[in-house]
């Protein structure tokens, strides 16, 4: 392993992100004039344009779950030859991992220009907020009944927010974490969204606003929940070599990791996780792998894009990725550490899922690339290393370290 951080950043990457694209973001259900396929194609077209590549260059798709039909997509787009098409398994944690899958395809030589994408469209019958119980055929989040889920759904535990509220409550009990700490995540994220035209929630949020918000699933109030939105984001990854000749400065993939412990397993789908990690994000083993692969530590990260479906889970990830000790996420954010202005580790400079838009974590990758290109709206000065997480959920949870080509 090379000695200096500079050498480490240069040595590991075999692939790089070269293009990012997106549709506009809509409030939930408001994109229904477009089909999901149209949304996906718009985002891919924008990402390829951004890279300076064309549809004929694409030879791979690396996705996260949701079961998008890449046969239909390749046929629709007239892709000359698909050499790699795979999706990470899982139930919420995989957007960052889809880029890791692209990296794996490129490292193994199976494909050279790989597209990752996600589209979200939430008409009333397909809201993610009732995902556990969503058996509507119209929903891209439809779940079929299973003998394991019987033990969850029979208690009317039907919403991810209810499930994560129980992790949050346990963290409060064990470590003295308070709603003020959750509020700091919501408020600091909102501050970052206020100057962004892309953000769906741009009005200032005060502590009074937070405490006046209606309770959804105690201890989580409305402002602890991410926005419900529609939209699509696409990312293009290619070899480090080819990346040098394209439109933008390449963003090297320093490391990716996905997985987790079997004892974390379905996490909020069974609640049998060991006591010592129950009130966590499940990220500890993945974080260890991630930093080891890059030869980096949390202290090397300049900006963290942490999947924020619910505000308390940002605290738990800060702990699992090693930005602060276990249990100290609350006091850590209370000290201003995750603020864009003056924070030791700015978090979700794009407004996150909480205030910008919810495209299941793809917006976090988009922001990481803009930060490392130096073109972000809320630019962290001299950002060289960005951490992206794919979301606390059942395993695999996934994460990505991106760098900057000098």
């Amino acid at each position, binding site marked *: 392993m090379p000695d200096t951080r500079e050498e480490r950043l240069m040595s590991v990457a075999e692939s790089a992100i070269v293009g990012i694209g997106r549709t506009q973001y809509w409030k939930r259900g408001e994109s229904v004039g477009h089909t999901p396929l149209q949304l996906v194609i718009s985002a891919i077209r924008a990402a390829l344009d951004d890279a300076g590549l064309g549809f004929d260059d694409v030879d791979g798709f690396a996705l996260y779950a949701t079961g998008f039909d890449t046969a239909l997509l390749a046929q629709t787009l007239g892709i000359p030859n698909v050499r790699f098409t795979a999706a990470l398994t899982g139930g919420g944690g995989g957007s960052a991992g889809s880029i890791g899958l692209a990296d794996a395809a490129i490292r193994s030589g199976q494909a050279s220009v790989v597209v990752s994408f996600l589209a979200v469209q939430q008409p009333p019958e397909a809201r993610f*907020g*009732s995902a556990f*119980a969503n*058996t509507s055929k119209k929903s891209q989040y439809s779940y*079929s*009944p*299973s*003998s*394991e*889920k*019987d*033990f*969850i*759904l*029979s*208690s*009317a*535990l*039907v*919403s991810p*927010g*209810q499930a994560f*509220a*129980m*992790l949050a*409550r*346990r963290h409060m*009990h064990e470590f003295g974490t308070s709603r003020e700490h959750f509020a700091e995540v919501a408020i600091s994220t909102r501050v970052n969204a206020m100057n962004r035209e892309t953000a769906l929630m741009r009005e200032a949020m005060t502590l009074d606003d937070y405490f006046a918000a*209606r*309770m*959804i*699933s*105690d*201890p*989580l109030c409305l402002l602890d929940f991410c926005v419900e939105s529609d939209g699509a984001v696409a990312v293009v990854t290619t070899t480090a070599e080819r990346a040098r000749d394209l439109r933008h400065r390449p963003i090297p993939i320093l490391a990716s990791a996905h997985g987790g412990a*079997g*004892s974390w397993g379905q996490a909020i789908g*069974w*609640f*049998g996780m060991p006591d010592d990690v*129950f009130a966590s994000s499940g990220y500890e083993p993945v974080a260890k792998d991630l930093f080891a692969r890059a030869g980096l530590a949390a202290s090397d990260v300049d900006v963290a894009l942490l999947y924020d479906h619910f505000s308390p889970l940002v605290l738990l990830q800060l702990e699992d990725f090693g930005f602060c000790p276990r249990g100290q996420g609350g006091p850590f954010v209370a000290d201003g550490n995750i603020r864009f202005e003056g924070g030791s580790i700015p978090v979700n400079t794009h407004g996150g899922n909480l205030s910008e838009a919810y495209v299941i974590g793809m917006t976090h990758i988009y922001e990481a690339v803009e930060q490392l290109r130096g073109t972000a709206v809320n630019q962290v000065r001299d950002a060289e290393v960005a951490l992206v997480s794919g979301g606390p959920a059942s395993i695999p949870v996934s994460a990505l370290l991106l760098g900057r080509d000098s």
Partner: protein
Amino acid sequence: MIEMLSTPPANLVPFAPDACTAEFWDAAANRRLVVPRCVECLTYRFPPTPVCPRCRSGDTTFDELTGRGSIYTFTIARHAPLPALRGTVPYAIAVIELDDAPGIRIVGNVVGCAVNDIEIDAPVEVSWDDEVGEGALPIPRWRLRTAA
């Protein structure tokens, strides 16, 4: 005013018990709480699955429990995520640890008490619905237990 917790409907969504979970639900229909335990290494597991995650033995027995436990964590649902739950809020969802089956947890509703009476570590005991409606499972619920 004391705000009481509701009991959610027992037939909210379609259920899919299978050969692994049948013994649990059959016992529940007779108001008995049973959980799977490995015959080889005596480790409890939940939900019922084909093998023990510790020693991977498929040799399983179902132990009947006293139904006593304590609240490990909980949430008070105040918003109804589904239209069918609109008349049910607030209701409590809790993760329960069982006094006589260490190492496993079971998710259930705490019923029959005020919202403000619920807290982590509170002792509870199993409680069964008076009737099991059409399309429903005999769901174990939980009531606060006062120290005897």
